[in-house]
């Protein structure tokens, strides 16, 4: 029996965001937007969903005079991401 895939991560944009954040300490919104090619609105909605699930933490601040939103993967998010990757590997066996 195949393990169930986390529906929150089984979405192209949310998975890309989680993959980006799994490889760095933190990243700001502009970097995520540039790397995923998503629109600001869409990306913002998906980040909110991941935050609500406790997978990401978001910190709003300023860099100089410019507003800056910094995203960071949480330990729960990293655990969910690792389980998702393991489940994918099971599917491909």
């Amino acid at each position, binding site marked *: 029996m195949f393990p169930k895939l986390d529906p929150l991560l089984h*979405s192209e944009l949310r998975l890309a965001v989680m993959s980006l954040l799994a490889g760095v300490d933190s990243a700001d919104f502009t970097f995520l937007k540039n790397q995923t090619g998503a629109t600001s609105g869409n990306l913002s909605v998906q980040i909110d969903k991941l935050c609500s699930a406790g997978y990401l933490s978001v910190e709003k601040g300023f860099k100089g005079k410019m507003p800056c939103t910094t995203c960071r993967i949480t330990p729960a998010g990293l655990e969910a991401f690792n389980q998702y990757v393991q489940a994918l590997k099971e599917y491909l066996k």
Partner: protein
Amino acid sequence: MEQNKEMTAQESLKLISETLNNSRKSILRNHAKYYVLWGSLLTIFSLVIYLLWHSTGKASWNLLWFAMPVFGYLFAWLLSKKDAALPESFVGNLTGKVWALFGLFSVVLSAIAVFIVPMPITFTIILLLGLAESITGVILKNWPVIVCGLIVGIGGAVAATLLKTEAQLLLFTFGGIILAATGLIVKLQYK
């Protein structure tokens, strides 16, 4: 990128792998410019001090070395203003700390050598420079950088014991060129 696109397991794994890889590349490509900056500064300072020392015969021109970190950190700060959108990464932080420690060791040892206890400073710093570069290569998993570090560190240390007075400064010119080349190698590798 679509949020609701149905993906197969293979597509998902491909997306994860490509995303991680692209992110790593953009971070490391950005770091390359700092190697070019410090390598260029090292080359210019060593050549200028060598020429001044050679033409006047005064070793006190070596005090100009203490201006290099001032220029270096100023230019690095100006360059970093363009990095606002880049994330902090473990690899980036680690290599940054290795070079910050190299800078600290070099400045403190140079100050001690000039003002307190004379010591073979060229030998010590060229060895540290090569070591820092090789460690960077190990962190980046980049063989050309590791080898460049070995050449600068071991070759430089041997040459420093053979060369005398201002001729030793040319070792830093060589080290600077290799450091700048390291930046270009990293930039090309992660293009």
